[in-house]
């Protein structure tokens, strides 16, 4: 297949393909992180996750227009403001949803899954009514476009680097929050034993709400970041759901490390398969592999053995 290319060419493609895999990894991880936090805390999948991401994307779109109109001099930096606004907007909506919907369903995880699906329908139509049915184009500041020349033949995408950096930052922040902060301690306590945590004075409802809000907020940031690589439209959130859910489920509940490892393994295999097969077949094979592995390790790849 590659006989006609020089070794140097193949080498640089290999490097770039590795980089593409890393970008895919960052994308998967960023998509899945918010969901994983919620899944770990409540054991439930938020089916409106994709719509929270798109909310973040629309916030970015609005921001770019606001900056263009009122702060043209700061336009180059609008993206940072947009991410913060996306986080706040999606997080606030998440808090609201938790208060109005999810907290009533903690005893019924499958029902939460269904209720959040209903929510996703409503959010889609709300986007359509507000922003129109067409996709909107989110313009990026010039400095975020294009790629860096590492050597003559190796180029890396700036926005890919940006996504990787962002993913690293957010993952680290979540890890610090989970393992160093009081909130994280309480979250871990609630995950381990909800009743006991309540008994020792942890406000489990508050923890749930904050966790859900944080998860949705991270989804918003992810959505904001994905305006660089994907489309922004009322139904675009659906494009991400299967991948996201699989990453989270594959990683297993209650394990941040699991989510990271799962995103890494899925993205690497997909990226490698894509290079040798067509995109369609790579996707099918990746999904089937994940399903097959999940059957072997039903509780996810990276779950500790505990007494049930």
């Amino acid at each position: 297949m590659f006989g006609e290319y020089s070794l140097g060419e193949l080498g640089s493609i290999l490097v770039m393909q590795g980089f593409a895999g890393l970008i895919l990894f960052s994308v998967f991880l960023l998509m899945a992180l918010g969901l994983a936090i919620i899944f770990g805390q409540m054991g439930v999948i938020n089916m409106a996750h994709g719509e929270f991401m798109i909310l973040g994307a629309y916030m970015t779109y609005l921001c770019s227009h606001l900056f263009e109109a009122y702060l043209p001099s700061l336009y180059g930096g609008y993206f940072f403001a947009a991410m913060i606004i996306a986080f706040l907007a999606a997080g606030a909506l998440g808090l609201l949803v938790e208060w109005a919907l999810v907290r009533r369903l903690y005893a019924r995880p499958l029902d939460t899954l269904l209720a959040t699906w209903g929510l996703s329908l409503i959010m889609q139509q709300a986007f359509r009514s507000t922003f129109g049915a067409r996709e909107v184009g989110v313009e990026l500041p010039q400095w975020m476009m294009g790629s860096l020349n590492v050597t003559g033949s190796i180029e890396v995408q700036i926005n890919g680097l940006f996504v990787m950096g962002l993913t690293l930052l957010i993952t680290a922040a979540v890890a610090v929050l989970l393992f160093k902060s009081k909130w994280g301690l309480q979250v871990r306590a609630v995950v381990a034993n909800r009743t006991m945590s309540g008994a020792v004075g942890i406000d489990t409802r508050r923890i749930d709400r904050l966790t859900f809000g944080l998860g949705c907020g991270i989804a918003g940031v992810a959505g904001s970041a994905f305006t660089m690589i994907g489309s922004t439209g009322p139904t675009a959130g659906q494009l991400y759901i299967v991948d996201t859910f699989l990453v989270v489920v594959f990683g297993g509940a209650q394990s941040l490390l699991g989510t990271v490892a799962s995103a890494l393994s899925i993205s690497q295999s997909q990226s490698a398969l894509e290079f040798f097969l067509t995109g369609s077949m790579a996707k099918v094979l990746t999904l089937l592999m994940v399903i097959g592995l999940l059957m072997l390790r039903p509780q996810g790849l990276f779950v500790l053995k505990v007494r049930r």
Partner: protein
Amino acid sequence: MASDTDFLLALENVSVSFDGFKAVNGLNLYIDTGELRVIIGPNGAGKTTVLDLICGRTRVSEGSIKFKNQEITGRKEQEIVRLGIGRKFQTPTIYEDLTVFENLELSLPRGRSVVGALFWKRADEVIQRVHEIAATVFLADHVDRLAATLSHGQKQWLEIGMLLIQDPELLMLDEPVAGMSVSERAKTAELLNQIIKNRSVVVIEHDMKFVESIAHRVTVLHQGKVLAEGNMQRVQSDPKVKEVYLGH
């Protein structure tokens, strides 16, 4: 590895660890036919885990468990049940959406395959047996009630009844009197004394008074190991036991 045994149940050198923590550590435990054994021990001593190991809910990391001189480690729960081991859980585990009658009927050791269950007939002997057991566990007047509407004590009895109807050779009860009123406890003790006549029973219990009222032999577990074994008096006077368990 393990030798042949005359005991009904023999645990030899059994260990299990959860993520590095050894919940049960080199445990040896032998139960005779017709014996009533009470296992006591402080929280986290590994009592429930021992029951989980015997009935196949948790896999042993090493060691051997033999029932009627037959290795049962690695078997599935339902197979172990079919060999004649019944298990009652700490919290009442019954089918709340079914009636008492149906709860007992489901526990009858017949029609356990898919086809058998689909074409199951309520023969007269089945009905008779269910009513018999219902009477034994003080629920004769409640057979048509939804299990969800029973009192906590009645639920515990129902679960014991569901085990009885399986007619197991070894019955394992995890805190059978937890949450019962004083009079219910007395009745339960009476019930246990009655049903152990033709089988072996392993009981986990915290309530010392209750233990005294039923126990033949007591095993004290501590940190996944047997700390002491013998009759109630001897165990209670053991200084080691006093230190870890009874002393405070």
